[in-house]
């Protein structure tokens, strides 16, 4: 490691006012884009790439990384305040963030999310600086069978996020695993379960409209029903006094373990091409719950859950940069666009970059650190404003959410059928809510189902139909064992939690 070069690169980035300004602007824009359902960090980065053509490389990378990191945190704002993940990566944040808001702890949840995002992001950025070539080699070892087992391991989290009834969690999961096969099969091109003229479903159920329907629209439906019946809304008693913009020392102590674990889980999963922030947040949540002293608090509004999810999805941004820079392989959809931005500036990311353009590599690391810092500042400045969102009169807020949601569903593909789909999913989500079937397993399976299926079939195709032979591959075995442990342990935890709840009632 060339310390002199590292320091000089960091110094030149962190003192360049132009870079700082661009990164800050990016972070501020990213937080807003991320907070609006339907607008994702991916989209923000894609729209900004043409603008960055005229700029120097480092300021433009700073701008794009600012959007990336800001967007990752921004998604949690609407997840916590409105029960709507602003981006898919924030889907796991809803699990505990929304109950915290219902308990009147919205400012606390936002502060925890921001702090965890920042720490996760820093862990990712530091791992990237020091461990990048090492992790990059590990990422190459992930072929179809390893990806399949990773997806299975991710799916084992379903029990953790099922809430009280495992069976209902499984019903939701199988429902998700079935509908994720709708559309054109990614391995053979065969069209499954949809009419052949439903072109908008060819690439599968569009994820963002489904997410908007299941969470935002379903929530508005439920609230409408409650208000029409004259029930007093629970969020009316919300305490929105913001005493502090950073979490209290007590909270930091509580979440420290989750944040560190989440940061590393996020970095590692982010480094695997094809697995991104959404998966890492769920995995981190599951692991945190299994290792927590109070697993029964998860899902009822514990800062630990929010911290686990948010630190992982931000750690992911550092992780995803590792294969991008050292292998020239994008780790997720945002880095796929970033790679284009590098190429346009005449730089091809890849192993040679560490040999020939080390100064640029270090400058990118520095820009990522800076982006996380900017995100923290934007978050601190904005937190008082964000919280005001839930003080808006429900008569105004709920219809507004409805309209913004539908626009969000339209924007992603600019297709009116997606809006219809969001409404259908809104009704499904409403019905699921009513029967206490958890929604998060559907999201998780929509992400992991296709990954599991296509990688399994890809492997079997390469191995000439012999699926069992995947158990001769060490990484595959490790993930299989992890999946089994995680399954058994979370079933045990669920039993224990249910028992704990029953005992005082009987006494």
């Amino acid at each position, binding site marked *: 490691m060339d310390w002199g070069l590292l320091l000089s690169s960091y110094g030149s980035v962190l003192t360049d006012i132009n870079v700082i300004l661009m990164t800050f602007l990016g972070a501020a824009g990213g937080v807003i884009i991320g907070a609006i359902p339907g607008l994702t960090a991916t989209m923000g980065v894609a729209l900004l790439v043409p603008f960055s053509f005229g700029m120097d490389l480092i300021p433009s990378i700073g701008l794009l990384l600012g959007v990336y990191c800001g967007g990752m945190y921004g998604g949690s704002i609407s997840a916590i305040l409105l029960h709507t993940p602003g981006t898919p990566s924030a889907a796991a944040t809803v699990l505990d963030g929304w109950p915290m808001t219902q308990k009147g702890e919205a400012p606390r949840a936002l502060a925890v999310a921001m702090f965890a995002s920042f720490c996760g992001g820093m862990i990712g950025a530091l791992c990237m600086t020091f461990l990048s070539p090492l992790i990059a080699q590990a990422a190459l070892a992930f072929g179809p069978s390893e990806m399949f087992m990773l997806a299975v391991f991710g799916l084992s989290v379903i029990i953790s996020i099922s809430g009280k009834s495992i069976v209902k969690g499984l019903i939701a999961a199988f429902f998700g*695993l079935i509908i994720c096969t709708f559309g054109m099969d990614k391995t053979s091109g065969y069209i499954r*379960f949809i009419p052949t003229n439903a072109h908008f479903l060819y690439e599968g159920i569009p994820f963002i409209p489904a997410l908007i329907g299941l969470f935002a629209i379903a929530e508005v439906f439920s609230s409408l029903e409650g208000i029409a019946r004259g029930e007093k809304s629970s969020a009316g008693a919300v305490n929105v006094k913001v005493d502090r913009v950073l979490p209290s020392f007590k909270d930091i102590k509580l979440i420290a373990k989750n944040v560190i674990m989440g940061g590393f889980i996020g970095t590692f999963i982010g480094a695997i091409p094809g697995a991104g922030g959404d998966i890492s947040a769920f995995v981190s949540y599951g692991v945190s719950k299994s290792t927590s002293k109070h697993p029964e608090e998860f899902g009822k509004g514990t800062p630990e859950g929010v911290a686990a999810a948010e630190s992982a999805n931000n750690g992911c941004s550092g992780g995803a940069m590792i294969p991008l820079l050292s292998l020239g392989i994008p780790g997720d959809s945002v880095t796929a666009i970033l790679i284009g931005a590098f190429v346009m500036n005449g730089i091809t990311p890849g192993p040679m970059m560490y040999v020939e353009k080390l100064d640029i590599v270090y400058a990118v690391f520095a820009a990522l650190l800076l982006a996380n810092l900017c995100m923290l500042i934007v978050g601190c400045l904005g937190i008082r404003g964000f919280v005001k969102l839930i003080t808006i009169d429900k008569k105004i807020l709920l219809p507004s959410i409805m309209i913004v949601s539908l626009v969000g569903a339209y924007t992603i593909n600019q297709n009116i059928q997606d809006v219809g789909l969001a409404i259908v999913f809104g009704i499904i989500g409403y019905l699921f809510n009513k*029967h206490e079937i958890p929604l998060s397993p559907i999201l998780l399976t929509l992400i992991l189902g296709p990954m599991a299926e296509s990688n399994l079939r890809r492997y079997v*195709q390469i191995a000439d139909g012999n699926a069992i032979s995947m158990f001769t591959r060490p990484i595959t075995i490790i993930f299989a064992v992890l999946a089994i442990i995680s399954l058994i342990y979370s079933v045990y935890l669920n039993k224990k939690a249910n028992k704990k709840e029953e005992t005082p009632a009987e006494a």
Partner: protein
Amino acid sequence: MLPISFKEDNNLKKTIKADVYVGIVGIIFGIVILIMTTQFEELVNVPIGPEFFPSIMATGLITSSYVLIVQSIEDKGKKFLLIAIAILIAMTASWELLGFLIVAPIAMFLLMKLFNFENYFRMALISLVTCALVWLLFWKVLAVELPLGPMDFLYTL
């Protein structure tokens, strides 16, 4: 105190009844998907076709919906009846794949458990011996070769 607990009880009954409907809807959806997968065209040169994954998941949905229904039924008589039916269906479905000598003893073991048998060792012994005798009787006396799946080699001995 009394009215409150009475009211709660009512609510509980309501959600339990609703759970049965959820289970029924889940089973219907799963069956529709299963039927649709059987209509898929056969693709050549593909070891695992496009029907594989959805049909497994549909089976999973049907199973978990069934479990939900069983869980929500309070009457022990009906509950056990449903469990027994599930055991028989599972046995039938896996019969040709795993073979009579694996499937039948397990099914019998579970059925005995359902009938309140307590001694696990005796349960295991009785189910194994009974099934083996049934198999031998059908093979040697009635000349019916029950499918044995991976244990088919027994017929060549």
